[in-house]
């Protein structure tokens, strides 16, 4: 069913028409928690892109060459999550070496990438939609970029909001969710440009 869409089509569709955060709701937890500052949002965004692309490639290979031939389809959840957890560990070590400030800024949120539903979600969606290898990689990359665009936009808005007067009950999560809703509406404007089944 996905034969018709080219690699680039999937890439752009994953960013705009089926943005993983704003239309599929994946990765909302860390989206709400880490979107206070643009700088941290950029850092986490790159980490997510890297992990998402790499794990979708790895999981595709493992699923199609190991799990499928041996009829171990039901093990996919456990296998996928192990691959993701191992990868996050690597990213964490790299960031610790490269940038001390980024490491302290991201702090406890890095391990949270493991439980970022978006990463596991991308792997599960690519299985359900029967993507080929190149399609899966571009889907992972596109979803990561889409997630990063959304979180950076949100962080930019929230930095401005710091000075705004918000009703008491809406502070924090409430106002963030409303902004996310408006962003989702804006992204709905792309609907029809290209489709992902």
């Amino acid at each position, binding site marked *: 069913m996905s034969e018709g869409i080219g690699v680039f089509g999937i890439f752009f569709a994953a960013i705009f028409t089926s943005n993983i955060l*704003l*239309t*599929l*709701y*994946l*990765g*909302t*937890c860390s989206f*709400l*928690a880490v979107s206070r500052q643009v700088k941290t949002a950029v850092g986490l965004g790159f980490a997510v892109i890297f992990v998402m692309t790499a794990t979708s490639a790895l999981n595709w290979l493992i699923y199609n060459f190991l799990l499928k031939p041996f009829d171990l389809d*039901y*093990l*996919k*959840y*456990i296998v996928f*999550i*192990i691959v993701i*957890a191992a990868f996050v560990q690597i990213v964490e070590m790299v960031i610790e070496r490269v940038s001390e400030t980024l490491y302290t800024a991201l702090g406890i949120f890095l*391990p*949270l990438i*493991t*439980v*970022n*539903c978006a*990463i*596991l*979600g991308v792997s*599960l*969606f690519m299985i*359900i939609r029967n993507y080929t290898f190149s399609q899966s990689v571009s889907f992972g990359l596109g979803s990561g970029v889409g997630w990063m665009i959304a979180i950076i936009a949100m962080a930019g808005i929230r930095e401005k909001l710091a000075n705004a007067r918000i*009703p*008491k*009950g*809406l502070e924090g*999560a*409430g*106002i963030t*969710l*409303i902004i*996310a*809703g*408006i962003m*989702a*509406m804006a992204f*709905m404007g792309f609907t029809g440009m290209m489709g992902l089944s």
Partner: protein
Amino acid sequence: MNNKINKITLANLGRDNPVFVQILGICSTLAVTNVLKNTVVMSIGLVFVTALSNVTVSILRKQIPTRIRMMVTTMIIASYVILVDIVLKAYLPDVSRQLGPYVGLIITNCIIMGRAEAFALNNKPFISFVDGMSSGIGYTYVLLIIAFFRELMGSGTVWGFTVLGSWWVKWSIMVMAPGAFFMLAVFIWIVKGVIIKDPEEVK
């Protein structure tokens, strides 16, 4: 003992509710609440996984090495999710297809991991079971309320039965992504407004 159980249950249903106070597990809150029936199935699955993985982690808490405890916890959760997935595929294939990847995504639902980390690692099995159960129920009723309104306003139905007649203009935005965000925001707003009025409960 009884007192402690009551206290934990009440806290998880109200003051420490995982969804609207701790803002955990939002992804599935938003994703499955456009139809009431899917929400119920999803919630039952989640209560099952939270309660049992809490018990398992609690039983094994002395054996699990601290360094790899996240991995072990995730494995335990994933095993229970596989059970849920297989049962759903066998008995409710339609719902299973509609929920799609969101059943598998119970694994990454922060509520379960959070309860296992924060509670089950330091407490006895039975009390952990109560804690998992009540967190799950605290999550469930929020989802049910949101799903009820989204389905009612978005499709004019409740549980698939038409409630609002043809005079009702369907708010199709409610079953789509933005509606989910708005609905949850409004819910949090109302709840926080009520809590803030009561100075006893402000943390």
